[in-house]
């Protein structure tokens, strides 16, 4: 019976007009009619949420008294924008934090351009990050000193994501090479490190970094909380990146390395000039995927009390002057993460399409 039905839908329609085609797609069989009804039901169920967030919402900037209707209170975001974006960073110095955000976006955009890939972009990032850290910390060139305990908001989120990926990458390369090394000790150590970190929840690593790390180090080494959090994120990123890079290394034919060896090219040169460029190019989509994961993971620093954009939004939402604004605050933060992550995702798809086009 089912079979007959699908055969009927598969037959070419006799009248090719739009309407009849539409009818066939949406109501051609019992099944498709049911699915259409289901979809419409889902969409109808979303209407109240849309009304709340858009139609009934208060978009105007102003005091809390504006928000007494049934809709969302976006005035709250307007009033708390500085606190959410910059945290406790001193207001008169917030232009510095803003510059850092702009710099990061500019550098990311520059990185999107494949022609710059290579040493130049690495150098650019190194200089850029140094500038950003100097801007954030201040204390030189007449800028006031801002301790890391006052850093907060979006710059923290972006810096943690970029630095953990950037610092984790070289470690990941070493671990991935180690895991495929012929030396048993190097292989065992790499496998141990990778599997250990991947077997643990990031929250556990953050606990270790925030509470235990100072115990492991000599008493005269104090690294502040932000630095320790970054260390945990870096190790975490390194373990996951290493597995991705290993995937790329596995796809390479051994012949190339042997050929290089036969030509007497030293191991590290072979790796740097021949193996890595090819391996990394192969795994760009999963690499961008890991980047998305790390951007999302920076939000966990809330648990150890680092004042990232999510913590800032949460503390902004505790202001009693505003009627229960936590939904709006979290939606705003969710939107920022969503924009960053989908942008990386789109870029990855674009690259993938490019690679496919070239290989055909």
């Amino acid at each position: 019976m089912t079979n007959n039905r699908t055969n009927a839908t598969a037959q070419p329609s006799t009248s090719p007009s739009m309407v009849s085609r539409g009818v066939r797609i949406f109501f051609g069989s019992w099944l498709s009619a049911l699915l259409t009804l289901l979809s419409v039901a889902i969409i109808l169920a979303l209407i109240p949420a849309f009304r709340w967030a858009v139609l009934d919402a208060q978009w105007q900037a102003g005091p809390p008294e504006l928000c007494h209707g049934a809709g969302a209170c976006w005035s709250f975001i307007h009033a708390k924008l500085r606190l959410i974006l910059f945290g406790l960073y001193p207001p008169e110095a917030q232009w510095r934090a803003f510059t850092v955000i702009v710099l990061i976006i500019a550098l990311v955009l520059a990185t999107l351009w494949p022609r710059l890939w290579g040493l130049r972009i690495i150098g650019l990032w190194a200089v850029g990050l140094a500038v950003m850290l100097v801007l954030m910390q201040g204390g030189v060139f007449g800028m006031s000193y801002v301790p890391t305990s006052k850093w907060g908001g979006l710059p923290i989120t972006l810096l943690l994501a970029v630095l953990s990926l950037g610092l984790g990458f070289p470690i990941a390369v070493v671990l991935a090479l180690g895991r495929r090394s012929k030396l048993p000790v190097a292989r065992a150590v790499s496998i141990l490190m990778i599997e250990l970190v991947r077997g643990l929840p990031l929250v556990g690593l953050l606990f270790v970094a925030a509470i235990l790390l100072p115990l492991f180090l000599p008493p005269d080494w104090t690294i502040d909380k932000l630095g320790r959090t970054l260390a945990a994120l870096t190790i975490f990123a390194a373990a996951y990146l290493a597995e991705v890079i290993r995937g790329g290394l596995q796809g390479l034919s051994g012949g190339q390395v042997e050929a290089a060896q036969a030509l007497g090219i030293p191991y590290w040169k072979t790796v740097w000039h021949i193996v890595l460029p090819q391996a990394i190019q192969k795994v760009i989509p999963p690499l961008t995927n890991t980047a998305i994961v790390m951007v999302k993971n920076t939000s966990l620093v809330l648990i150890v009390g680092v004042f990232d954009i999510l913590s800032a939004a949460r503390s902004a939402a505790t202001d009693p002057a505003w009627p229960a604004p936590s939904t709006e605050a979290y939606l705003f933060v969710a939107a920022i993460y969503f924009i960053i992550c989908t942008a990386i995702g789109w870029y990855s798809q674009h690259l993938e399409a490019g690679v496919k086009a070239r290989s055909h």
Partner: protein
Amino acid sequence: MKTKMKILTALAMPAMLLAGTAQAQSGGTLAAVKERGRMVCGASQGTPGFGAPDDNGYWRGLDVETCRAVAVAVLGDMDAVDFVPLSGQQRIPALQTGEVDMLPRTMTWTLQRDANGINFTTPNYYEYTGFMMPKSLGISEVEGMTGATVCVQTGSTTELVVNDVSTKHDLDLSPVVFDNTSAARQAFFSGRCDALITDAGALASVRASMADNPDDYIIFPATPYADALTPAVRQGDDQWMDIVTWSIQALIAAENFGITQANVDEMLESDDPRIRRFLGTDPGNGAALGLSEDFAYQIVKALGNYGEVFERNVGMDSPLKLERGYNALYSDGGVMFPLAFQ
């Protein structure tokens, strides 16, 4: 090869920058603080009146000013302090591992804590643990709380108090435990719990700063016992412990002597030998602690006496409007007792 080195150094740079805060701490906390030129204090994640940044990010509160008093004594500058917000769970490890030099963070002086890696200096606030409930529930004492849901924040003695109270009065309280102060408070005001439990002072702070209408809420004691909230320091540095103890004591003693921020300069002319020793006009005290002779004078000059600090942050001049109660001087019926500066 050269390029590779360049990349490596480039990559290592931000790491080095972040690690740049590493400091030498050998030679005791005093030497470390002097070398750094700044003091680091643990702070709460926002308890207005006791420790919270204001709209400009400047930290204010009773605990915060206690820390500033020490900074004045050691560095001569009440603003040479960085405050690190710590959760209840992180505060003790942060002190033990040297992340902060002093922990004035509404922390109860208990035997278990004292015996386990930290030293308490001298209480800067006495308070009972209280419940806050909406008046609309019509309950004003612990005995009526049967079946109530209580919002608790982990990392405090209050977790134990909930259990003790529940067992003692057979109340069957159901706790909802949060790892974060603001989460616990938000949950209470959203109606998730019937009651919020914490130090009564902090409750007053929460009520004044977070309630739509503070008069809608009632605060009552959870136990008949009061606790001493006491700034703590690391174990094993006796000199630093003395400095913190006597800097806090300077605030209390100044009130006892009748010395205020306004009259401290006149008091330098005092004939009372005890006041002269206190202010350093007659030397000896400062050198004994390894501080400048006029450290107590500097503290009072910068912050005033304990009474002024109290009124400004939690008393009648603040939104909290707390009575002095236990925290009055012993001569006024409280338990604040000045030690002898000699």
